[in-house]
């Protein structure tokens, strides 16, 4: 009888140093899949390796042995003594293993709940396993259900709806003001990782022009080149306020770079088109009183952090709905697994045969002229023994201690499909 097992470690159970040591590249994964799939104890295998987790999902007839094999393999391959990582490993079996992989793919187990990358990483893991054919009937089924569950959770709950990074939250806000960002102009004042990330988001939303203003003009030119934008002098900011729509500011200045008066004067020339200021700098670059000017909106780092906190809370609430969908999926999957076991399959096969035989016998009765009870009995005996003869070999094969059959589930699955037993 096979078991589904999941063994691994993630950001909760292991430090980043350990995760780094145990991480696999795509090529490593392929190699390992081939090597381990040849071992006796592990039947089907899939490896998920991301920066936050390394997990082995596999099926085996002998759980204990396969776990030992795996640990040994890891220690050899990564040159770490087993005791150094053993305590960081978690192990899930059967339904729990399914539940775990569902939760991972739906990013309910992620560091940031609802982050979208993990689904792609899981798909990749499945693709690698498929190419080297280390996944079979069970894992294929499990992975399909995993992807379905993750997609369902993404569409039916708001788990990934709201922004949870500063730059993304700023873009969402801009969309609430301008609708589409297409054709808008943005000005980046200063530099910095977060500000540049926001500019990248803007470009992805098809903002037309990017202007960069830096105190050191040379740096500005460099940065502008990166975004395919235009560098302007620091003194030109005021005149540029006329044409730009979104201003992202992140300088080290201890005085306001953009003052209330500058904006007030420009609003008329702008014909009151909206102006959105994103102030990521501490101390602030943009005079907060600008927010009071009609059609000008100022958000500083605290405002944006406030949004993110709210959104994280929102995601956590949505995650509860996600857990419910996971439970449903686990139930469906475990029903399928139960059916895939030997005894129920044999019973189902027998019943199917009996059903066909009974149906044909009844037809025959109708064609015969008043068959006697003896005739009937003889006919039934004959069909019963035919069924037994036909099923004899398949059943001994399934029941027997068939070590020569690797991936017993594969046989069961084919059998169920051939005879339409599902």
């Amino acid at each position, binding site marked *: 009888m096979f078991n589904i097992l999941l063994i691994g470690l993630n950001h909760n159970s292991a430090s980043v140093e350990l995760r780094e040591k145990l991480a696999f590249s795509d090529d490593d994964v392929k190699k390992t899949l081939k090597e381990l799939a040849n071992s006796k104890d592990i039947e089907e295998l899939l490896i998920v390796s991301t920066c936050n987790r390394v997990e082995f999902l596999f099926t085996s007839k002998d759980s204990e042995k396969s776990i030992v094999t795996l640990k040994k393999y890891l220690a050899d391959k990564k040159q770490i003594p087993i005791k150094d990582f053993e305590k960081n490993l978690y192990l899930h079996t059967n339904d729990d293993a399914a539940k775990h992989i569902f939760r991972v793919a739906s990013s309910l187990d992620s560091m940031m709940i609802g982050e979208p990358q993990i689904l792609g990483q899981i798909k990749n893991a499945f693709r690698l396993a498929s190419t080297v054919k280390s996944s079979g009937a069970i894992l294929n089924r499990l992975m399909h259900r995993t992807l379905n569950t993750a997609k369902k959770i993404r569409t039916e709950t708001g788990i990934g709806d709201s922004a949870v990074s500063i730059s993304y939250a700023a873009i969402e806000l801009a969309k609430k003001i301008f609708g589409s960002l297409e054709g808008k102009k943005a000005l980046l004042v200063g530099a910095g990782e977060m500000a540049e990330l926001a500019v990248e988001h803007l470009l992805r939303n098809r903002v037309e022009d990017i202007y960069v203003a830096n105190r050191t003009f040379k740096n500005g030119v460099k940065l502008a080149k990166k975004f395919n934008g235009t560098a302007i002098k620091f003194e030109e900011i005021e005149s540029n306020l006329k044409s730009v729509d979104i201003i992202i500011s992140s300088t080290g200045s201890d005085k306001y770079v953009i003052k209330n008066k500058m904006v007030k004067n420009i609003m008329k020339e702008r014909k*009151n088109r909206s102006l959105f200021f994103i102030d990521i700098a501490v101390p602030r670059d943009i005079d907060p009183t600008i927010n009071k000017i*009609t059609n000008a909106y100022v958000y500083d780092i605290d*405002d944006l952090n*406030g949004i993110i906190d*709210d959104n994280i809370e929102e995601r956590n609430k949505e995650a509860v709905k996600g857990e419910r969908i996971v439970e449903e999926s686990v139930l469906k999957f475990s029903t399928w697994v139960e059916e895939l076991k030997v005894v129920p399959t044999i019973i189902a096969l027998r019943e199917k045969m009996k059903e066909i035989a009974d149906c044909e016998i009844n037809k025959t009765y109708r064609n015969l002229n008043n068959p006697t009870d003896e005739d009937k009995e003889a006919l039934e005996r004959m069909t019963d023994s035919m069924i037994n003869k036909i099923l004899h070999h398949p059943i001994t094969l399934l029941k027997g201690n068939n070590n020569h059959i690797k991936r017993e589930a594969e046989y069961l699955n084919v059998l169920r499909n051939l005879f339409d037993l599902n």
Partner: protein
Amino acid sequence: MEYLKTICVLTYILSSVSYILFLFVQKERYSKIGYYLLCLSFVMHSTVIFIGFHETGHIPAYNLRGAIMIASWSISLVYIVLKFRYELKILGTLSVPLACILFLIATQLPATEQFINPSYKSIWVFIHITAMFAGEGAFALACCCALLFLIQEHAIKNKMHGFFFKRLPSLELLDSTCNTCINVGFAIITLGFITGLVFAKMTWGQFISMDPKEILSAITWLTYAVLIHGRLTMGWKGRKSAIMAIIGFLLIIFTFIGVNFLFNGHHGEFTRF
């Protein structure tokens, strides 16, 4: 006829309910159901009006009941047309219940038989009335957009990212929809004015009879004219034009109902009951 009206009320109510549900639950299908129900109500509503027209030979707008009935009809019409152009589902949660309530009020009002001056059976009056109501429907929708704009603007300015912020569309969309409604409404109302003036000249020999409703309508028309002018030349965008749109609509309501109770004039008799 009564039977049809009852079904129409019911579909209006159901449509309003699904639009309100859409506001809270944010499931696409509720807005869709709401829209289909609204279209259904609109067809029945039109039938009711058409039957009235057929029976009397003129637009059934010569008493308060008829006037409100047509006002409600024009709001539905404008919203249905608007839905084609803009993806503004949330506007339905305001305008559909409004149309629904007006329709409900109309059915509850007594149908007083009014003596209709035969001269009113003119094509000019027909166009005058239709244009006035359609234009006012557009202004009503503009007012709804303006209200939503102010709510959303308040949320963004004060960093309150709660219920409304998430559900309302962008400021830009609300502003431009409001603007479209006002432009269209203004054009239609102007047409209504001209036909009214032509009719007055033909019937009474003078363009303006200093009827209080005429004066107030002229003021309203000027308000919207100023708003459009300000937008084009001085860039009155956003908050300012939203407030103006609301003031303009309040003036319309006053012109529509208030005047008839306070003053006398040849428009007055139509909205008595």
